[in-house]
């Protein structure tokens, strides 16, 4: 459909997210090139924003708040503990205080680093050997929208769990997040949502109801914060098993 032809009839359902996947994609592509439909959509987006005001409101049980605040307290304690000065930081401070002995200490440090490099080299070779036998890495490639993006899905030997690492993706605003899709027979299952830092780096612990190796492909799209039931936004990364 050209920009001159519009999707006015589908825009209300698009704002609600109730179009089928194919229609949703068609409208998304049209909106990218049609300012008239984008302006029309704003009215329907506003209605969707206002709809929560029309529901009957009732109170959740009393202990929900306690559980949320208990989580916040625990999380805050953890952050405070980890932000306290570490042993290494205290050591560095002590070294600065003993500036006259710094030259000798530096030589000693270089010697220790040399030894540790040799040790790490050996460990790296060992890890490579082990990882080749127990982990499967699935590379994900950027799309036309994000040619600079790269990703890797590392799956455990039993295929039950995996870790997704991405780099080079654009940082999103608070209304959007990236969502991983596990694809099999054209069906897309939610694999989790994540955000990236300002440098485009992000990761996600992936745990699916079925073994990850039972899926044939993996894709990542931009979705509203909290994720979507099915892909609605731009695809940014993809890869096949």
């Amino acid at each position, binding site marked *: 459909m050209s920009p001159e032809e519009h999707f006015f*009839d589908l825009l*209300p*359902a698009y*704002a*609600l*997210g*109730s*179009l*089928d996947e194919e229609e949703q994609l068609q409208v998304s592509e049209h909106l990218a090139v049609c300012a008239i439909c984008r302006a029309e959509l704003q*009215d*329907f987006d506003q*209605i*969707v*924003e*206002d*709809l*929560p*005001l*029309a*529901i*009957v*409101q*009732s*109170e*959740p*049980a009393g202990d*929900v*708040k306690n*559980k*949320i*605040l208990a*989580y*916040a*307290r625990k*999380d*805050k304690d953890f*952050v405070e503990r980890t932000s306290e000065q570490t042993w290494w930081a205290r050591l560095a401070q002590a070294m600065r205080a003993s500036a006259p002995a710094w030259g000798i200490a530096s030589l000693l440090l270089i010697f220790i680093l040399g030894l540790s490099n040799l040790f790490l080299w050996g460990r790296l070779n060992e890890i490579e050997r082990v990882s080749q036998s127990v982990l499967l890495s699935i590379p994900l490639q950027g799309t036309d929208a994000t040619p600079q993006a790269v990703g890797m899905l590392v799956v455990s030997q039993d295929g039950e769990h995996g870790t997704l690492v991405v780099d080079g993706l654009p940082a999103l*605003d*608070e*209304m959007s997040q990236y969502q991983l899709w596990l694809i099999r027979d054209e069906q897309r299952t*939610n694999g989790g949502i994540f*955000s990236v830092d300002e440098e485009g780096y992000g990761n996600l612990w992936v745990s699916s*109801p079925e073994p990850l190796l039972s899926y044939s492909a993996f894709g990542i799209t931009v*979705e*509203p*914060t*909290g*994720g*979507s*039931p099915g892909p609605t936004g731009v695809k940014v990364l993809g890869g096949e098993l």
Partner: protein
Amino acid sequence: MDYKELDDQSLIRLIARSQESALSELYDRYSRLVYSLALNAVGDPATAEEITQDVFIRIWDHAGTYQAEKSKVLTWIASITRYRSIDIIRRRKIRPESQSVSWEIEPSAIEMNPINVEETVEISQKRRRVRQAISMLPEEQRQALAYAYFQGYTHREIAEVLGEPLGTVKTRIRLAMQKLRQLLEQEEHADE
């Protein structure tokens, strides 16, 4: 500091700096909305409480990503709640009863926030307008709209649940949204 005196955006900024009391105040303001949205979506109080807990934990964890210039706090929270609820419905294959969805179409008491009266009046007016507009929709359009909004169902899924032709459902959703737009525009002009 009296957190009740702070506006929503200030609370979010304090939550981003790990201020539990700010989270507590935000919960007091929005827990009813979050819980009720989730309850309308999943139809089960225990699952709705689980979603409520999850939404506020997400707010605690991601408050730093909130951008005031993009949306109001209410919109941000409602959006997180809606998508989280729809995700749970899909993952757990929940089939809520249509009767569990309830639009407030009767006039109800306005909940006033004694600190920010201006904002409360604005929201209350908007709430009245939206409820009035929804009450003027035919029942079958309200029902189709509820399935699309709360459960995140597609046209095809709504047609299956209601046992109606796909085209009929598409028309109901379209007419409902167009009618709401027309009614809300009229109401807004009438209030000015």
